[in-house]
Structure formats: C-alpha cells, structure tokens
C-alpha cells in the first residue's frame, strides 16, 4: 500500500493504461499509451521516466516498455478496484452508466482500502438479503426504472475531456465518419438518437460555427447542428470517402 501513497492520480492512470494494453496482448508503445490517455507522447515519456525511477515500469530507449512485477501488482489492484467501483455504482446503486464510469475513475484514486472492503461486504449483503421477495439491491433500483440502467460498453479511465478515441468534434469539415457510440448522458443521448444519430449511421461534418459555436453535420439528406460538447460525446470511426 505504501507504493500507492506516492503515486499521483495520473501516474496510477498511466499504470492502468499500460496494464490494459499489455493484457490485450499488444506490446505497449508510447504512441498507444498517448492515444489511450488522450495526452501527448511527450507527457507519456515523462511519466514513464518517473514510473521507471519508482521501479514500477521498465523503460529505456531501445527496449520494450514493460511493467515490473511490483508495477503489475499495483496495476492489477487498481484495475480490480475500478471494476468493483463501477459495478457498485452502476449495478447496485443504479447510477447512470456514463456517470458511474467517470465517478469510478475518480473514486478509485481516493477511496481507502478500509472503505472499499466495507463496500464489498455491503455489495455481498444486498445480493443475499431479501426484501418482500426481491433482493434488496433490486428492490432499491426497482423504485424507478430508467432506460439508462444497463451497461455502457466496457470503459477505461480517460482524461475527463474527450478521450474516447475519435469523436465527432475531431472531424474536420468535409470529413465523413460512422457513428460508433453515444457517450452523452441519458436525456441527451435519446434526443440525439431520435434525430437519427444512431450507431452505424454515416455522417459528414459540414462546418463549424465561429467563436467555438456549434457544428453542422449532414446525415441522410438533412443538416443538423449540435454544440461542440455534444459532438464530443459522439464516438465515431472514419468512413471511407464516397
């Protein structure tokens, strides 16, 4: 635990990032980490040097980046913390998935291991105890069903701003893309969906308004406008030009 005391929030995020990339079977490269965390490669190098000094990562020019045994343990602990907190917020409390995701990202750095163990105990308790025929957790969430209860796609901790890979707001005027996922909160997401911004739909970025104003996009044969923040919540992948 003492190791964690010296790690800053952002160092912890780097550690998890490296951990996840290596777990997916790839060899972590500076550029991958930078993309995953939405930061510049220069800051990644700086962070890696620091982690190397702390003995958590092996990083020297010419050699592959790898976690030390100690680093891997710390990362695993952090990752399981994240997964539990996400599960607790989203599935036990019924917090809206995108909020649960970002709150889990914030909590994982600060919650003490004592609190965490109590939360784990409570989660087990709600799954076991019954209340009027339903499990306590379910009875609590059943108080008000929301369409946003279920899972968002498996998430990773990212910088607060943007960060989910390419978004609509990154698209240059004239660029075409296909919508992958809507990350906005419930109400905004449904509004976008009702207007036709659904995963799989192809869109074209037409223009941006001056002074950081909204963007105009084209889908099917209609023009829609949305604010940049809303556009930044739409994850897209590039589509081949027509």
């Amino acid at each position, binding site marked *: 635990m003492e190791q964690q005391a010296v790690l800053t929030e952002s160092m912890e995020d780097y550690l998890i990032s490296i951990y996840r990339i290596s777990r997916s079977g790839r060899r972590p490269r500076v550029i991958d980490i930078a993309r995953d965390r939405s930061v510049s490669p220069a800051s990644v190098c700086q962070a890696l040097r620091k982690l190397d000094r702390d003995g958590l990562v092996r990083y020297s020019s010419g050699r592959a980046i790898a976690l030390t045994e100690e680093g891997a343990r710390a990362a695993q602990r952090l990752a399981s913390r994240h997964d539990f907190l996400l599960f607790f917020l989203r599935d036990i409390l019924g917090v809206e998935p995108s909020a649960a995701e970002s709150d889990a990202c914030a909590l994982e750095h600060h919650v003490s291991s004592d609190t965490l163990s109590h939360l784990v105990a409570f989660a087990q308790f709600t799954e076991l105890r019954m209340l009027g025929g339903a499990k306590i957790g379910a009875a609590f969430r059943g108080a008000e069903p929301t369409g946003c209860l*279920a*899972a968002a796609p498996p998430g990773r901790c990212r910088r607060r701003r943007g960060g989910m890979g390419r978004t609509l707001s990154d698209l240059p005027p004239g660029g075409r893309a296909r919508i992958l996922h809507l990350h906005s909160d419930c109400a905004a997401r449904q509004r976008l*969906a*009702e207007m036709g911004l659904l995963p799989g739909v192809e869109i074209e970025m037409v223009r941006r*308004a*001056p002074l950081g*104003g909204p963007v*105009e996009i084209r889908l099917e*044969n*209609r023009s829609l406008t949305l604010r940049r923040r809303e556009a930044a919540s739409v994850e897209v992948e590039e589509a081949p030009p027509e």
Partner: protein
Amino acid sequence: MKTLRVALAGNPNCGKSTLFNCMTGMAEAEGNYPGVTVGTALGRVRRGDRTLELTDLPGMYGTRPSSPDEELAVKALLAGSFDAVVSVLDSTNPERGLAMTLQLLHMGRRVVVALNMMDEARRSGTAPDSTALSRLLGVPVIETCGRTCAGTDELLNAVLEVCSRNPEPRRISFGDELDRHLRDISRLIPPSRVPAAPSFLAASLLEGSEAAWRLVRHSLGGETSARVAHAVERASKEIAKVFGETPDMVVTRARHGIAMGLARECVPGIFRRSTGPDLTRRIDDVLLSRLWGIPVFAAVMFATFWLTFSASAPLAGLVGSLFELLGGAAADVLPPGALPSLVRDGVVGGVGGVLQFLPGITVLLLVMTLLEDSGYMARAAFLTDGLMHRVGLHGRSFIPLLLGFGCTVPALMATRALDDRRDRLATMLVLPLMSCGARLPVYILLIQAFYPGRQGAMVAMLYAAGAVLALMLAGLLRRTVLAGRDAAFVMELPPYRLPTLRSVLKHVWLRAKHYLAKAGTVILGFSVLLWFLSYYPVPRPGLDGALPSGAQRLEQSYAGRIGRLLEPLTEPLGFDWRMNTAMLGAMGAKELFISQTAILHSLEGGGHGNIASALRARYAPATGLAAMFFILVSPPCVAALAVLRKESGGWRWVVLQFTLLTLLAWLAGFAAVNLAG
C-alpha cells in the same frame, strides 16, 4: 354534438404550422404561450354539423419531451386527450416523421397521416406512394401541400372518418427478442386501466420515459407499478446483455429501422435521392462561411433594425402628432377640470402610446416571420450560439437582445423565436438593460448638464455597461431562478424555403391584434394610473386666489408625495424628491423624464439648455452620473411591463423584473456616486 379534439403532430420544419393555417383559414386562432398550454396554437373549424378543435403541437421527433411545452404535449397524447392525431410528414424526408407516426399508432391513437410538401417531393422525383403507405400503416394517408393548401379538404374528411371508428392500437414488431420482453412487461399492465396501449407503455418504460412511468404509477397504483418496474428492470438487464447496448438505444434503433423499411417500400425514388450538394447547401456555403457568415448576419441585423425603427419612424411620429392634436382638441372642447386632463394626458396619451408602437411592431413581426419561415433564423442562431452559450443563453437570444437597443417592446415579442421557456424568460427579464432608444435623449440631457463635451464616450460607456450587465444578469438568472438543463442545441437546419404570403400575413395580423387587445389595455390602464398619481389630489387655490403653478401641483400630487417618501432611500444617490418624481414619471416612457424635470423646476417650455443648467445648479455631477445609471438599469416603461406580462404569461415575472431591476438600479447609482465622488 361533441366537439372533436384533433392534434397536429410532426417534426419541426415539416410544414405543420402552414398546414394548420390552411385548415383553420383566417379564422380566429389563439396563439398560445409555450409551456403553459398544450400546443402552440388552437383553432376551430366547422365541418357540416361537427366542430373540430385543432391543436398545433410543438414540433417533436418522438414522444420523449425535451422542453416544458413538449412535455405538456406528450402528456396530453399519452392521456388520450385528443380524438384523433394528424401525423404530418415531410414528404421529401418521411423516415424521421414515420418513427413518430409509428409511436402514435403503437400508442393506440386514431391517426391520419398527412404527406405534406408533396410538391417539393414530386419535383425531386422522390414522392412517396400514399396508397402503399396507407396499406402498410392501415390508416388514411392524405397528400397535402401547405404552400397551396391542396389536400386540406380531404384531410379534414379523413379526420372525421377515423373519428367515427374505434381506436385500435397497432401491433408493432421490434424483432423476437424485444417483442418477448415487451410482452412480459405489458402482461402486467391491464389495458382497461391505462389510457395508452400496454405494449407502447412497455416500450416507453424500457426507453426510460418519465412521462410513461408517471402514467403507469398514477393509473396502476403502487403495488402493480412496482411489479411492472421490476419486470422493466429485469428486461433492461437482459436486453443490455444480449444487445450490448442500453435498452433505450435498442428500442429507438428498432423503431428507426421499421421507419426506414417503410420509407424504402413506399418511396420509389428513395435510392435516387441526390446526396450531392443541393441549393441550400450551396447557399449555406456562402452564408455560413468563415468569411461571409458574420458580415451577412450583421447586414441582415442592420436591415432588420433599420426597417423596424427607422422605416416605421415617420408613421409612428405621425400617429404621435395625431394624438397630440386630438388631445389638444379634446381639451379645447371639454370644460376645464379633471376630465379633460384625464382625456388628454391619460386616455389619449395612453392610446397614442399603444398605437405609436404599432407600426414598428408590425414591421418587426413581418421581418421576423420572414426570417423564421425562410430558414435564416436557425442559421442566425447557429452563428451566434458560440457567443451566447458562454453566458448561459441560446443562439436565438441574440436577435431579441440586439433589438432591445431600439425598443424593448418589439424585442420582447421577438423572443418568441426561443423554444425553451427558461431561455426565453431569462432573455425577456434582462432585455430592459439593453438601452432603448427612448433613453438616449435623457442621457444626452444629463451629459449636457454634468459632463459637457464628453457625449460620445459617455453614451458608448452607458450602452456597453447595459449590455454587459444584461449578459451577466442573464447568466445569473439561468443559474438560479431559471436554472435547468441547457436546451440541447440539437436542431435541424431546414432547407431554405420561400415563405408563403398567407402564413406570413396571418401570423403578423394575429400577433398585432393580440398586442392591441392584450398589451394595449394594460398600457392604457397604466397610463391612466400614472396620470391619476400626478394629477390628484388637486391643490386648493392659494389665499390670494392664485392658481398653483405646475411645479406646486406636481409637488402636492401623489407622485410628488411618493417622491418625497422615497427621499430617505434615494439620498445615498444624491436624489431629492424632484429627481424621484421625475424618475416615477419616466415609467410612462423614458423620455418623459425630461418634461417632468422641466415642470418640477418650474421651467415652462424651457429648452434643453435651460433644463440642463437647472439640473447643474441643483445636483452634483456624481448625482448626474447616478441618474444616468438609474435610467439605464431601472425597470422599463409601462408598455414594456405590459408586454412582458402578456408574453411571459404571468404577473410574477413582471414583479420579479421590477424588483430586480429597481434594486440593481439603486446599486448601480450608488456605485456611480461613489466612483465619481
């Protein structure tokens, strides 16, 4: 025979309101205040022995409300408050509208589909086949054209026809997996106890619709609705597991898929739809470009401003002098006493005041309707939203605020372009801070008296201070009294269209009429009240029999007494009772400050120079500055208050504005005294 209630529902920009105007003709149609009553307009049509009451619902994309007025509309639809619903589709683009038609059918409403804007669709060779659509949907589909009003008769006949039948909820298949969950949930909802089809409610609950949830809880009670909630919960989890997506997205996507499928089957030319840049796109490439966007917008604004305030000025001036003559004539004819004074200053002055605004308002309404109907208004919002969003307002607030520099009254009416009630109220409440034209002569007088030779700088400073204060106050209001989620700026940029004469004229005519009827009476009432305050009580002639002078009369009137009463409060600003009474008089119209000051200082018919020197002799320059700021920030004239009352739908907003601006004016004056002193 019972009146049939019929709603018009459809996407924004599907020509719904034009069609509504066709159906109701020039007949009386009540413009509604959004967020207070269902729909944006109400009209009656007689058809044989039946009366149809048509409600024009706000433009929506589905049954998920995103603003207070949409919320009311959805609630009314869910509760089955309408005998039939006309689902208006844009024929050039029917898919999106069809998604909503499907929801109405699923809900179990009697539906007639209007394929609107058929002329445009035919021209581009992508006209939907109405017979095929009617066969697939199982409801009448009528081809209409709002521009020429073609198909209106057939539409009304079809509405009457469906109303004679029993409504029958349509079964809609969303695919096996979803259908199974919908069945599981809807089994728990007894159809006889809810006003909408259980299957539709089940789908809405899966989508997380609060309106549907409220309805279920309300009509089924705690125990049953808890069971429903539990089923929804379980289904949500399973759906998420199977589809890897939240249930709301799954349901929306399924419905969208059905709508797409319908469109593919009924629109023969759908694959021939051009995807290349059309005329609208080419126009926008200029009008919204980095280079031309702002200059064109500025030019449009300048033209609007000029037309509203300068082009109508001669007419307004004519009305003003006409009423002055009339007042003079009345005073000559009538015997001396209270009555002629009331007629001259109260009634004729009041009616003149009302009518004086009319030319400007008519021109403004005309320009605004043209901008809105042509599609440029949405573009203006697009261009200015970056700036306005920073202070918590919407791009559509920009034009009203700018018009506020001319006159607050028409600017208040221009806030109708704002769909979100909170945005609109915030804009209306801060509008008086945009220094109106009537304040300029007052500034000039005060500057002449206290800061001669610095006119340009001082006037510019006052205007800028007002605008900055307005934006700051709007931001504050949107975070406190009017806090709430920002209206999502997801909107469609409609294709450019030529406005129809009928629609424009009807709009202008109805609005102008309502201004006269509603605001006019309140303005008149206020002017009579102000006249009363400054006329009564009538002082007795002095011992020597001399009639009291104007100044003495005003001093002893209620207005003068109120001025004196307020002296302790305004003392920190350096105001005496004369200044207070003049400020009170300025409530009638800001420029009245000048004539009131002239009377109070016993300057019969003195020019500006005289008044200025009288002011200079009596007050310190710091007080002059305080007076300027007080005029800038203090509540607007009674006409603006009356229009605010009408446009906001309640006195409480008038009271709020009055209190807020009075306090703020005092603070601004106090700050000015201390800064200058």
